[in-house]
């Protein structure tokens, strides 16, 4: 299982480095940074592995805050309507402060269920807002050709798959939580694969900006030979 999880992290990183290093939008760089961060935290958690409950809890809490910040920034970048952007920014700041306050005031011995649940619910709502905008203002091309759509899909699957686990984490013992952590690992793996699809769609489906467009200058049509 560990190898599968590791592979699911490496795949999108390799995809990004091979296909998307040049001329990539800011939002995909944000997701790439998230994947690296997520890999780093997972590796750190693997090393800690219940040796120190408090540090483990703090690491989880910090990861929740970072994850929320990155996803909120991603949605702020992809949603173009000025009013929605403003509302998103205000809600994000409030949620961020709430998550930080809850994390600081928690006992730091167990998994911080409250802040993780709030993060999940908020990000699910942001995803729904993005999808709602897509319905109202459909792009000219097919929605599956948009890399942002795939990223939002990955985020939505990750958050909806882990929401119930986060809500119930405070009712579970540490051993039980470790047992059910596989849900998070599977959700992570699926999300990483979907992020990989987003990077590939960005490279192969979107118009390549570096390709030269043929320019037809009708004033300089060569005479017949």
């Amino acid at each position: 299982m560990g190898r599968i999880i590791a592979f699911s992290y490496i795949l999108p990183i390799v995809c990004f480095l091979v296909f998307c290093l040049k001329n990539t939008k800011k939002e995909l760089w944000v997701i790439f940074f998230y994947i690296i961060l997520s890999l780093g935290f997972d590796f750190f958690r693997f090393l800690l592995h219940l040796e120190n409950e408090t540090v483990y809890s703090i690491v989880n809490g910090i990861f929740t805050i970072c994850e929320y910040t990155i996803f909120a920034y991603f949605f702020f970048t992809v949603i173009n309507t000025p009013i929605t952007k403003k509302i998103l920014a205000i809600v994000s700041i409030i949620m961020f402060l709430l998550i930080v306050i809850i994390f600081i005031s928690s006992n730091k011995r167990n998994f911080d269920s409250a802040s993780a649940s709030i993060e999940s619910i908020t990000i699910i709502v942001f995803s729904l807002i993005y999808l709602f905008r897509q319905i109202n203002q459909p792009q000219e091309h097919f929605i599956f050709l948009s890399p942002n759509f795939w990223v939002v899909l990955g985020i939505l699957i990750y958050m909806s798959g882990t929401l119930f686990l986060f809500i119930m984490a405070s009712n579970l013992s540490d051993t039980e939580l470790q047992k059910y952590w596989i849900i998070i690992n599977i959700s992570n793996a699926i999300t990483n694969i979907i992020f990989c699809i987003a990077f590939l769609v960005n490279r192969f489906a979107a118009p390549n900006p570096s390709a030269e467009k043929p320019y037809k200058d009708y004033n300089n049509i060569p005479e017949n030979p």
Partner: protein
Amino acid sequence: MLLLQVLNPDNSIPMVLFFGTIGMLALTIGLIVFISFHQRKVIRYQQQLQKMEQDQQKTLLNASIRLQEEERQRIAADLHDDAGPLLATARLYLNENFVNLDKNTQLQSIYNAKQIIDDTIQLIRNISHSLMPPTLKNFGLESAVNDLFQKISGSGSMNASCRFHEYRERLKSENELIIFRIIQELVNNILKHSNASFIHLTQNTSGNKFFIRIHHDGRGITQIDFEKLNKSNVGLGLKNIQSRLKVLQGKIFFEKDMSQTYYKVTIELLREEELRPA
């Protein structure tokens, strides 16, 4: 959360977790499927609308070109059938002077030729006026329409009158020409098809809109008839009106008056300062 706390945690947590997670994932997938199908439907609908608009543009363009060609043919026919023979006859009279040297006969020939040339000048003047009335250019829309209606009244075929209530400042000359052509086309249609005994035109403004209303008591068309004719291959004149109105971002509405005694055509235009740039 309260409900979950009531349940026995030993047995129910895995069930709740399992079904909760599956439920959330099913909802997510269902939502994505719905969105993708809905978006395809919307894009297909937009493409259909675009195609209909393009077809309509093409029809209007074709109608415009056909009308242009018809106008050219008419002018060519007028010049060939009327002006041509007149000038040829004048030439004959003048040629006679080379043959017949009798002074009286010569004078008579020259006089006849002059008469014919005068008639030709008048004919060409009429053709030119029908192409571009000088009154419109020099005195504006109100004068040109007054002129047109006076000519119609003068012919005795019907009683034509017009009244401009709020036309203190002239519109741009190109816009005046377009409006004049629309009025001309509508009046021609009424003269040709309606059998009306009177026709009355009024102009006024309301807010940011400029209105022209034409009333007549003959056989008219309603908005449904207008839209049907516009879509068909006939009704070139109406298509021409539609094209011209598009340039001015205007609308036209055909209806029978509430009293059911006469037909009304309302042209609604935005005032010049409200027009969006093309």
